């Protein structure tokens, strides 16, 4: 059973009960908006939940941190290549940078108990505006699981408090574990003596 740690301001929507998910989404956004009545929000909520389910989401949550703009978190399970091995993370990272989309600006590898996860940061640019795609800031992570790769995506229409979202997302990814499995020890990385990294430039 894959488990992640979430703070209380991440409101998971019950995708298995779609009507309830739509209702909860609309209610939460209504509270954020601070104006009474959610009738006009239900269409938007239905579209958001429907879009997530059509994309195969197993997780959808509304993230409402006090010091940052609200965001949407989704989780999709994707097939893992059959020959996934130690080098695969590096290859996947390269693929994300090469063909993951023009808004992929940066990638990172994070250690988790399930194995290394690839994290990508998406910042919208002129390409998204031209293609009339939604202008949202995003973080994505591929986490290896026994069932495949769990693709988590956090998206916000604003960069207000984005540093908070970055920390939150990376903490959620790093906390991924299999509750029924003993955590695999992540091997210590051997330092490269000849690397400039170990002789960091300091003032």
């Amino acid at each position: 059973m894959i488990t992640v740690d979430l703070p209380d301001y991440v409101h998971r929507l019950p995708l298995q009960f779609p009507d309830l998910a739509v209702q909860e989404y609309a209610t939460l956004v209504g509270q954020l908006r601070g104006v009474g009545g959610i009738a006009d929000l239900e269409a938007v909520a239905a579209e958001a939940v429907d879009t997530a389910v059509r994309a195969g989401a197993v997780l959808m949550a509304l993230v409402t941190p006090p010091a940052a703009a609200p965001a949407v978190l989704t989780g999709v399970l994707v097939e893992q290549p059959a020959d996934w091995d130690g080098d695969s993370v590096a290859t996947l990272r390269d693929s994300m940078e090469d063909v993951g989309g023009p808004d992929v600006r940066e990638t990172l590898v994070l250690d988790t108990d399930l194995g290394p996860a690839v994290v990508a940061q998406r910042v919208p640019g002129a390409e998204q505006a031209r293609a009339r795609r939604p202008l949202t800031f995003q973080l994505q992570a591929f986490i290896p699981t026994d069932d495949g790769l769990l693709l988590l995506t956090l998206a916000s229409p604003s960069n207000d408090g984005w540093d908070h979202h970055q920390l939150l997302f990376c903490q959620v990814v790093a906390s991924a574990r299999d509750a029924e499995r003993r955590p695999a020890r992540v091997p210590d990385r051997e330092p490269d003596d000849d690397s400039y990294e170990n002789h960091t430039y300091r003032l």
Partner: protein
Amino acid sequence: MTTRTFPALGFDPADGDADAVKTLMLQLATASETINATLPRLEEAAKITDDSEWGGSAAEEFSDHGDDLPQGLGKGGEAITAVTTALSAWFGKLTANQARADVLEAAAKKLKAKLSSFDECNDETAALSTQLGRVIDDANRLKARHLREANATAEAIRKGKDGDPFKPENDTWYVQGFDGLAKGADGVSLATGVAAAGLAATGVGVVPAAALEVVSTSAGGVGSLAALGQQLSGSRNAPGWTAVALGLGTSVVPGGGTVAAGVRSAGRVALKRGSKTALRTARKDVEAAARGGALPGVIDNVNKIRRNGLDGKVSRDLTAAGREVAQRKGIYDDLPRDLADRKAELQRLGLEAKQDQAYADLVDKGSQVAEKAGVELSEEQKAELKLLQQGINPTPKQIDKAIEDFGKEALK
């Protein structure tokens, strides 16, 4: 051999001598060409002995030893072609990796030069150090990839034309698997983006126009992730967070199925329930607009345009729209004679027309959203919406153009 140095990075992320590879490729090509020229002649010579056109002991001796030559030479030619192809692919990778290494070296050099201009640590030096760390991380990744590609090439050369790793389809399949994942991630990104963009549409978060201001500066306004990797390697869990089981075993099937259908159905019910309220609210707003009351959404847009230094454009647009309204209503000649008053009146008429147009679009958009969500509006509701649109009597879509122009300006 050209000596490449990387003083800023401290190591060469893509070592190798492209010139040497090129020279070797030329030599192999020459050898291959020679074989191609020799092979038919050798085959012809062997054929002559077989056809008994050339007899005697010399012919027999030649035939005994020469029959295998064309076959051996042919195999050698194939091997050389295979190696040349492998080297040719490697040459492309080597030069591309070296070009990337040069870019990283230049970036590291620039960052180090900037850092050395500071006498003490501050926020700016911290940001520069993070950027430098990211460049070095990229260089390390390049080095690892370069090594993987070099090993794959060496393996391909060792195995020759029958070696699996060298088969192009194999490499393509391997890369395709990961590229497919990356492309899939782009698709999921779009879906989640649509869901998140809905937040802005409901007035929560920032409206798209404001987001455009940020995207025009590309990634400049967004911090790097690089530091987080190190920060989280020690302590991953935030105190007070709750462990949540994701339950992937009961996941829905991508592409829809019963859950997706259920969501659509739930959406219909939810909106049907709310549609009466929405229509009541819409009618109220239209009445307010008809009486000249301001619509906050439109005013917000106009304010944004003004804030971005487009006063002149807005003024011209409003005046033009007002003139059109005045002519249509036949009140053009009744406008004040004083130029300032006349302009003010024209702009008042123009703003009113734009508000009406924007609201008509809003009503139109409302029905589109309803259709998308699978809501079936009753005939009465459709008729009521149509009436609202006709009642507003929309002018040409100038507000759209003004906002689009604003978007273009912001992107410049």
